């Protein structure tokens, strides 16, 4: 699903880039630039002006493309929690800062935070625990500048484990909050 969402914008961006390279003739319905079809005998020759554009960085760090750039912190989407805990650990501050800046820079972007829990215990209680985790991520993002209406915190409880073995290593991977952006949920 994720890959499909990615390919379309990428393809259209590529097409635009290719078109901009200018080796193609102008499209037929457009008037050729700078040439006037006048009938008078005296033809005035003009050189069309070319204004150069200063190139920016390859990818804007808070552009939508950065979400998929493996070099950008924005490509990282998971916050991990301790057992029976919903405290966001210090090691995730920089990641949350990057995402809150992205949300501030892209006010039309929406985020769904899905909280998760390991499999031990009641499904409904784990759903509530996952909600607490998603909510902790939401609050951290809000403190760092994301707008309330941009972010929704929900829980998947123990229903969507990233890892399915009954080991502590596996359970640790399942105690997490995932950040999804518009088009990914």
């Amino acid at each position, binding site marked *: 699903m994720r890959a499909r969402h990615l390919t379309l914008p990428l393809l259209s961006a590529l097409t635009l880039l290719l078109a901009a390279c200018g080796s193609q003739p102008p499209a037929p319905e457009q008037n050729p630039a700078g040439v006037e079809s006048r009938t008078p005998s005296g033809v005035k020759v003009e050189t069309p002006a070319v204004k150069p554009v200063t190139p920016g960085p390859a990818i804007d760090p808070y552009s939508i493309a950065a979400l998929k750039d493996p070099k950008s912190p924005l490509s990282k989407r998971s916050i991990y929690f301790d057992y029976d805990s919903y405290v966001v650990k210090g090691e995730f501050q920089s990641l949350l800062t990057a995402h809150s800046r992205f949300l501030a820079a892209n006010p039309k972007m929406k985020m*769904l935070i*899905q909280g998760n829990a390991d499999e*031990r*215990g*009641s*499904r*409904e*209680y784990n*759903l*509530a*625990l*996952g*909600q*607490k985790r998603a*909510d902790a991520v939401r609050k951290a993002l809000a403190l760092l500048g994301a707008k309330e209406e941009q972010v*929704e*915190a*929900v*829980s*998947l*409880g123990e*229903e*969507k484990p990233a890892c399915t073995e*009954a080991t502590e290593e596996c359970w640790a991977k399942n105690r997490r909050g995932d950040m999804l952006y518009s088009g990914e*949920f």
Partner: protein
Amino acid sequence: MRFRRLIPACAALAFSFAAQAQLTVEITGAGANRLPVAIADFTGERIVAQALTSVVRADLERSGLFSLIDAGSPLADSTTPPFEDLKARGADAVVGGSVTGMEQGRYETRVRLSDVQKQAVLGNPAFLHTGAQLRATAHRIADYVYEKLTGEPGVFSTRIAYVVKSTGRYELKIADADGSNDQAALASREPIISPTWSPDGAKLAYVSFEAKKPVVYVHDLASGRRHVAANFKGSNSAPAWSPDGKQLAVVLTKDGSSQLYLVNADGSGVTRIATSSGIDTEPRWSPDGQHIYFTSDRGGSPQIYRIATTGGNVERVTFEGNYNVTPRLSPDGKSLAFIARNGGRFQLALMDLATKQTMILTDSAKDESPSFAPNGRMILYATEIGGRGVLAAVSSDGRVKQKLSVQAADVREPAWGPLVR
């Protein structure tokens, strides 16, 4: 239903070949003092009679309250049973019957239940049915025998709901209490949890994640129509029906963490019931409608509490241990089933609410989602055996045990439906 167009002989054959996806029931423990009862072969239409008696026998045996005695020979409802012979065989009660074919593929089955010691007739009901209704008729006969002999209603005609998870697929299933006639009410690629029956047995409320978040639906089983009962910002979960079927208690996170609300079954009129700074979830009404029991971590660890439906003080119900969740009231409101964590094991426990005395009913480690049979005799729950999700049932005295499993799939989230009137 499925066999409506089949001729009766086919129907009788068809149900002896259980579909692979069907729940199979295995009895793993029985009651101490089982009542010896003989279910004689019924006379008349042979194939129909055989189908009926085999289901009646299986029902009574599965309950764990009866031991089946061989009657020796077929017995019609109109014949006086050979009481001396039955007494010698050790039977306390005997059931005879006859099946008569009628026009348009219908049958009349007449049954006679007799007390062997007193040599007296306890009752002789008659059932009109089609070939497609053999199992349903047999369950009715078993319910009749059960109620006459134990004094409490039988639950063989009730239905259960549960969720089957196979690779990438979740199905909300409805089956007869013996696991047969399973039908999918909903199939989804996303999880389905917390199904619960409306008091009239016509609807199920459940939580489905098909919208990438938990949303509460109310689903009318006969029409297949459903509506959203709660879809607010955040998560919506843990539906519980009020005893009158008009309202649902639900858990919403629209105002912060998981909190208890009431909503009309059609999704209108949301009001908050209780307030805590932590987690409140898993609400359940007491059968008299006076209280709502729920799980909360307001005291630091998850414990069971209750609040009057009219509001007021919250009372703590469980005190032993540091993880007691998923409260379920017995139909008479006198006891509370829940899941307790004991040294890393999650086990089904039963508390007598008057004395607060608590008994652990199982020796398994991953018990979840208990659900009382509507006569209160058995508790159905989910557990794990060999890494696979199965359903199990245990009697409220802990003696009778059953295992219900489906081949090559996980079964979870059982909910026992109400009595069929």
